[in-house]
């Protein structure tokens, strides 16, 4: 395949010229990609290297990796943050992330099935509303939801952070699943209906298994979003032993920033590890899911 669109030199060329051009073109392509890769990866490599440096060398020194690496930044983490072991934050984050995944998968797939497979009165109106919530800034709901949960005495519990996930408020995933379900062959569920299957049977035994890729994509995105979430826990949680990793890290920054820079950098890296692991394991699903969100069909 010839260089398309990025190569701005006129394409009028004989085969020999094309050949002469191909090698430099390929070289330029790899050099360009590598240059971008360097910029992209720099912060990640920086944080890995920094976590093995003495605190005072982290910002000032330009060497990515220290001459004599130390591990005290990591051993220091076993002491916990403000007397709370790091594992507490990780368990809290994990609980929220897994709870979110279960909720999103159940509630969004039910909603998506109704939109994609059932013809009922008012469906188009509801679909428009659902898409509308996709574009709604979250901050409009921030204060009234806080007031609501406060009046229900749910501050400092995980309910405010989880309830929405069980009520399909994340329109993006509903949308993703609707798109996927619409493209499943209609013959399957129509045949099932003629055989006397009800909607729930069709949903559970036919549509859900076929939607595996969309479900996996949604699950991974939900996990990562929940893991990274900062504003939700910041507003709803105020007892440190309920904090998530993000909040624990923020507490660390506020308390120790100057005293223990190394520990902070090490903790930042440790906090990222689950997301990076998910990425390495499932990058195909993530990228394909992302790609289909912009396209239909």
């Amino acid at each position, binding site marked *: 395949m010839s260089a398309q669109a*990025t190569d701005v030199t006129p394409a009028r060329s004989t085969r020999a010229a094309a050949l002469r051009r191909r090698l430099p073109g390929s070289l330029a392509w790899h050099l360009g990609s590598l240059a971008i890769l360097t910029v992209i990866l720099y912060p990640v490599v920086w944080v890995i290297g920094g976590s093995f440096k003495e605190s005072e060398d982290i910002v000032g020194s330009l060497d990515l990796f220290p001459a004599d690496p130390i591990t005290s930044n990591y051993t220091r983490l076993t002491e916990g943050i403000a007397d709370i072991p790091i594992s507490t934050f990780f368990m809290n984050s994990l609980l929220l992330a897994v709870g979110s995944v279960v909720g999103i998968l159940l509630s969004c797939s039910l909603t998506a099935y109704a939109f994609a497979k059932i013809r009922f009165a008012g469906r188009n109106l509801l679909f428009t509303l659902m898409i509308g919530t996709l574009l709604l800034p979250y901050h409009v709901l921030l204060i009234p939801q806080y007031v609501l949960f406060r009046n229900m005495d749910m501050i400092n519990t995980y309910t405010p952070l989880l309830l929405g996930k069980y009520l399909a408020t994340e329109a993006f995933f509903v949308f993703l699943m609707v798109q996927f379900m619409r493209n499943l062959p209609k013959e399957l569920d129509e045949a099932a209906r003629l055989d006397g299957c009800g909607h729930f049977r069709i949903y559970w035994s036919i549509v859900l298994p076929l939607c595996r890729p969309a479900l996996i994509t949604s699950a991974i995105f939900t996990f990562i979003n929940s893991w990274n979430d900062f504003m939700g826990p910041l507003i709803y949680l105020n007892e440190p032993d309920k904090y998530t990793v993000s909040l624990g890290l923020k507490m660390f920054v506020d308390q120790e920033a100057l005293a223990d820079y190394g520990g902070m950098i090490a903790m930042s890296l440790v906090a990222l590890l689950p997301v990076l692991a998910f990425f390495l394991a499932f990058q195909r699903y993530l990228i394909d899911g992302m790609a289909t969100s912009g396209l239909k069909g």
Partner: protein
Amino acid sequence: MGSAVTHAPAMEDLTRDSEPRHGLAKPRPSAALKRRRRRDNLAGYLFMSPWIAGFLLLTAGPMAASLYFAFTDYNLFDAPRWIGLDNFSEMFGDPRWRHSVRVTLWYVVVGTPIKLIAALGVALLLAQKRRGQAFYRAAFYAPSLIGASVSVAIVWKAIFSDDAVVDRTQKLFGIDVGGWTGDPDMIIYSLVALTVWQFGAPMVIFLAGLKQVPRELYEAADVDGAGKLRQFWNITLPMISPVLFFNVLLETIHSFQIFSSAYIVGGGAGGNACGPADGSMVYTCYLYVQGFENSRMGLASAMAWMLLVAVALVTAVLFWSQKRWVHYEEGGR
């Protein structure tokens, strides 16, 4: 609905439906058909019930409450007191609010185009099928997953602080402006850099769009002797315009709502919640300060509604403009 090769937009046909789906039902509605319709209605609303509950309890209800709070003085402890438009006049008269609007607009206007141009440029590069393409695509996408985390914000703050790598690098070029995160005028650019660093998500969407452009169009253009630049302008850009529209819409709306990274890079809680001299005081940071640090829930609700109006206006303008520059494939579905 379309086959796998159909190039169809996401945002155009969301509500319409290809109606004649169930070929069974045409002439006169029989008793059996009526029964089936009733059953379908019931099933539809049963399946939808979690969403409907969520919409009423967590979206529509709170929106109505927020609209009411916007016209009240409300500190969470005493009952809301109706004060008419006072919140709005206070807001417009508040220099700190106007500053936060300027910072946010600047962030959106500078950051979003750079990010999208980077995304499109790299997507064009990666659209060439060469060895390592899949690896690069995955690596470039990774920052989009971790970019919103507290960890990355901490790293960012360090990299852009005085004497750190960015400062030293610019000194090599004779630019001596110091670290960006300590400078009220520069800190916003460290946030711009952070969003540009996450160009991978729109890039992946661009790549998917580029893949759907029919190859014959380029071959025909080659035969006609059109240069690569012309081909990009007259073929590639129109063909991917639906994807471009989608990316512009989502990235713009998203940029308006930046919070966590500004809050953490800017230093977080306390007197200077967002950066030196409010340098990274983006709109939502100020909203957070007013609502949750100063307990001014009424004022913060009014601010939230202004944000909603701004986002709605931008969305409306974009949708209105798409007639002029977004080309949807005819009969693609």
